[in-house]
């Protein structure tokens, strides 16, 4: 059983919801990213989505675009991202890590090298925003061979047939993009999400995470009630961006941002 399955399964049995923060690796630098990952876990993160910076993040809003620019300016390459995970695993062997990003940096490394190195570093899953299932057939075996979960996005307009097809390729969890827009867009309608998640559950057995548009504890609680996991990105990345000095003030700020999300998810 993969670390992701284990973690989400254990939470599910206790009726708890997973908190999945997203951060961009290398923002503001690789050393700080490692500290941020540990501090997110201390504040209650169950799984971490670690963004691989890319020059052209087409699906991201301004907050994550700027984080990518900062990370690339700090010199963070995809090799460095794997090194961050390897060092994270020296002290944390339980919290699953999912790499999230775009296809081109993966293709540049080559699927064989990338999947081998990722698995060896301790990565558990990979989500490539611009890889729909139609184009995934040839690359799925590389990920399977290394025991990496492939995570796909489901949107409000994804057809039932495609959700089923994703089910064949994906493992770990599916990621429901709760609104039409880029990351960090406005707000989210919990009622509509509830209906849609219920429908997705009829088509796949995998846990359903919901992300894009969760900005505060109240929304986190509401979405947590109707899903298995919530993914929070832009508000966290924004907080990191406002503390370029890193260090204690950043970690204090992150704690006071993430703790309430955790509490809200844990409130019955």
């Amino acid at each position, binding site marked *: 059983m993969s670390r992701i399955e284990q973690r989400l399964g254990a939470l599910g049995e206790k009726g708890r919801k997973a908190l999945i923060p997203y951060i961009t690796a290398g923002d503001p630098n690789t050393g700080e990213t490692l500290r941020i990952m540990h501090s997110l876990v201390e504040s209650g993160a169950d799984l971490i989505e670690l963004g691989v910076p890319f020059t052209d993040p087409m699906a991201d809003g301004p907050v994550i675009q700027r984080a990518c620019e900062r990370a690339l300016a700090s010199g963070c390459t995809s090799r460095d991202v794997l090194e961050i995970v390897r060092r994270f695993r020296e002290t944390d062997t339980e919290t699953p890590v999912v790499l999230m990003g775009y296809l081109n940096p993966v293709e540049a490394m080559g699927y064989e090298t990338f999947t081998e190195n990722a698995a060896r570093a301790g990565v558990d899953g990979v989500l490539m*925003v*611009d890889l729909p299932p139609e*184009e995934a057939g040839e690359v799925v075996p590389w990920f399977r061979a290394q025991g990496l979960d492939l995570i796909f996005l489901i949107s409000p307009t994804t057809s039932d047939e495609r959700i089923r097809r994703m089910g064949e390729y994906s493992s770990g969890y599916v990621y429901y993009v709760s609104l039409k827009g880029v990351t960090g867009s406005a707000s989210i309608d919990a009622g509509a999400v509830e209906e849609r998640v219920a429908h997705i559950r009829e088509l796949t057995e995998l846990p359903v995470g919901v992300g894009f548009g969760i900005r505060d504890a109240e929304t986190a609680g509401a979405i947590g009630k109707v899903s298995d996991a919530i993914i929070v990105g832009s508000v966290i990345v924004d907080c990191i961006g406002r503390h370029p000095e890193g260090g204690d003030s950043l970690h204090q700020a992150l704690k006071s941002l993430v703790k309430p999300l955790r509490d809200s998810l844990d409130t019955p």
Partner: protein
Amino acid sequence: MKLTEEQIKASPDARGHFGAYGGRFVSETLIDSLEHLESEYRRLREDPDFLARFNSDLADYVGRPTPLYHADRLSSELGGASIWLKREDLCHTGAHKVNNTIGQALLAKFLGKPRVIAETGAGQHGVATATVAARLGLKCKIYMGAEDVRRQAVNVYRMKLLGAEVEAVEGGTRTLKDAMNEALRDWVTNVDDTFYIIGTVAGPHPYPMLVRDFQSVIGRETRQQCLEKNGALPDALVACVGGGSNAIGLFHPFLGDESVTMYGVEAGGYGIESGQHAAPLSAGRPGVLHGNRTYLMEDEFGQISGTHSVSAGLDYPGVGPEHSWLKDIGRVNYVSVTDDEAMDGFRRLTAVEGIMPALETAHAIAWAIKLAPTMRPDQSIVINLSGRGDKDIDTVARMDNIHVEGR
């Protein structure tokens, strides 16, 4: 070499692949719209009403067919093959871009979308989009890299006069690729009421196919005009390649003709060896950007490289996927010329034929200037004169250290 009828028909295949290239690499939110666009386009391209409307717009609004002009003086100065110019610069709005925007704006209208968006580099596609939007009463927003807004100020003003909103994109390298990122973000957000008019044969399937289909009118006319005027097909075709729409428009109807050699001319910038250019087919490698797999300019880690070209319309790190395929199978020769060579081409055509080409087009001229003397006088070259140079006057004047009065 030539392509067989079957090869041409099968490109792209049902999933939008040209050999190993193309496809639909986009985030999930756009898939449904792209599938819908594809099925509607496949239906409408057989629909007599749609085709009649498209063809009459091309005739009466764009001014087609455009002439095939014999560049007599240039030919005799160069002393080799005779040179013919396919005059896309005479299209309404001054470039081939409008052939495609007419087609896509009609699709928007038939699909009931009240708002159109577009990315633009040189501003020609932005102007062409704003123009058809004005004519059809569609809301219009144009994304343009901040650097290009500066370089192509005249076209920015034209778009605004036409009623379009122009957003200067400050992210990334502030050129065409960043404008395309921003247009894609707008589309994801407003996908219900918005049609994205992509300006070249790039982007996710079905765009490379439908833009090619709309632009192929260039090659179809050229073919017929060559037969009428010369009684023979041309020996060589030359076109500049940014995303590759004017080139594929000229080339496509000739892909099956063995005797026709084709040259796609990329922007060599300060020279390929300088690394400062925009020539992915000449010096890049395959990767994935903006929804398709194609040759890209990227670093060893897969980050997209900054590009340089004197011409904003060629300043793009990718290229349409069909060109990547045509390169790999050897059907088309992809070459490059430098900024300086292009400037010489610009001046030469202006001085000898009284035709001022766009700086993009000047790259094709520059290559033909090298090619013609290597060919026999009984042979012929057709250059796609993709656009006129008025928009580039400021850039050229700056190079001459001249300040154009009143600007």
